[in-house]
């Protein structure tokens, strides 16, 4: 049976790992390579590493860091941050990274994903959409943002995700800005909208505060990726840094329970 993917998502800023809340207040949580080693030992399903400086600073991906991550990482790795060209994607894949995530550049020009898919195959091209509830008195629905939620785009998020899928994305990562770091559960209604609209695998990020939250996501939308930030780097209500991950038996139990309750 194919299992839901339970994926630690690590944010890199100035070479260190941080964890944000609603994309703000980055708190230093440690060294990226050390975290990768711990997730190797815990046999995490996959790993997502996002450099949250690169696009905002308008710079290229840090290929030195990516090479170190790839050399250490013994699970499938997805890298994102500052990727704007098919050449960069090919270079990153050649370093030993399975998947490359693109956001701002693909939202501005979805056809970029076609070039990337032609270079490395659709299975290695991931589109990330940072979404938040529109604010304002009469605002309804969600909007897509880039540049660490500092720029908003006009397109409808779900329609855009379908367009990115058609252009060549082999996976869509949906990141809830509103839920980021709050640890109060995934936005299940939002997740359902994306899962129903898309043919490619989808991964949801933002809100996981317990293994039960992951179970609820899987019950609602089926076998998807459940990406996790705070829950796997913090312990307790004082948010002490402690890298953690469910044991194989916890994961098996979680999947079994969630899928037996599944309506997807």
């Amino acid at each position, binding site marked *: *049976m*194919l*299992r*839901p*993917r339970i994926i630690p998502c690590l944010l890199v800023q100035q070479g260190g790992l941080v964890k944000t809340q609603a994309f703000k207040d980055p708190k230093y949580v440690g060294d990226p390579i050390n975290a990768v080693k711990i997730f190797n030992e815990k*046999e995490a*399903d*996959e790993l997502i590493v996002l450099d949250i400086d690169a696009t905002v600073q308008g710079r290229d991906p840090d290929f030195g860091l990516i090479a170190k991550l*790839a*050399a*250490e990482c*013994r*699970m*499938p790795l997805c890298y994102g941050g500052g990727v704007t060209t098919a050449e960069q994607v090919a270079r990153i*894949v*050649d*370093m*030993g990274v*399975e998947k490359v995530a693109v956001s701002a550049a693909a939202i501005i020009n979805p056809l970029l994903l076609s070039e990337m898919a032609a270079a*490395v*195959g*659709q*299975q*290695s091209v991931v589109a990330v959409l940072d979404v938040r509830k529109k604010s304002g008195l009469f605002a309804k629905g969600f909007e897509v943002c880039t540049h660490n939620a500092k720029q908003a785009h006009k397109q409808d998020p779900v329609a855009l995700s379908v367009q990115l899928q058609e252009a060549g994305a*082999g*996976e869509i990562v949906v990141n809830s800005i509103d839920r980021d770091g709050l640890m109060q559960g995934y936005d299940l209604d939002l997740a359902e909208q994306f899962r129903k609209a*898309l*043919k*490619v*695998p*989808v991964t949801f990020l933002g809100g996981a505060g317990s293994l039960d939250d992951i179970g609820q996501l899987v019950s609602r939308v089926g*076998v998807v*990726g459940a990406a996790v930030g705070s829950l796997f780097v913090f312990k307790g209500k004082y948010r002490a840094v402690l890298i953690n991950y469910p044991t194989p038996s916890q994961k098996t139990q979680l999947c079994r329970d969630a899928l037996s309750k599944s309506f997807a």
Partner: protein
Amino acid sequence: MIRIVDYGVGNIQAFMTMFKSLDINAERALAPSDLVDATHLILPGVGHFDHAMQRLNDSGMRPALEAMVQGNGIPVVGICVGMQMLAAGSDEGSLPGLNWVPGRVRAFAKHPKAANLPMPHMGWNDVQVVSGTPLFAKGFDNAPQFYFLHSFYFDAENKADVSATAHYGLDFDAMVSRGRIHGVQCHPEKSHHWGALLLKNFAEL
């Protein structure tokens, strides 16, 4: 030593990392001259079938590989698209495959039992291993899992060549073994202790 066939397609670095952690000597082969000392061959592959076949054909290594595998019985394992290349051909493309293991590569999307599932088949899945399979000779527990990432699957002509199946809408041929020629659709280089065991067993063939 183990030679990883580097014809410009596939995650060579991940294999190098894995073999290094296993303390097994493995190097890339970029040209026929690099293949001379090979005791074992890894044929990786990702992306489009035709692209991979074209790059292998253009690499200049294909005649040497055919002589080594079919003539001299050097063990080989094809990984992901590298497994698919062992077939006669693929529904994904028009170029002929290596035809080392009779079979054809088919699209999940064309199979009625899988057409409505998310594609690619991505993530960790259980495999049902046929007993006696050399790649599982040592060390495995009862429920091995591997990481998969693919939209096409190998359909072996001779089911006696199938060494493991996995389920995604249908039971498909996840691994094949025909003599010293092996193919695995999953990514053992990224499948934690199960993948390490499989590659270690291959290295000890």
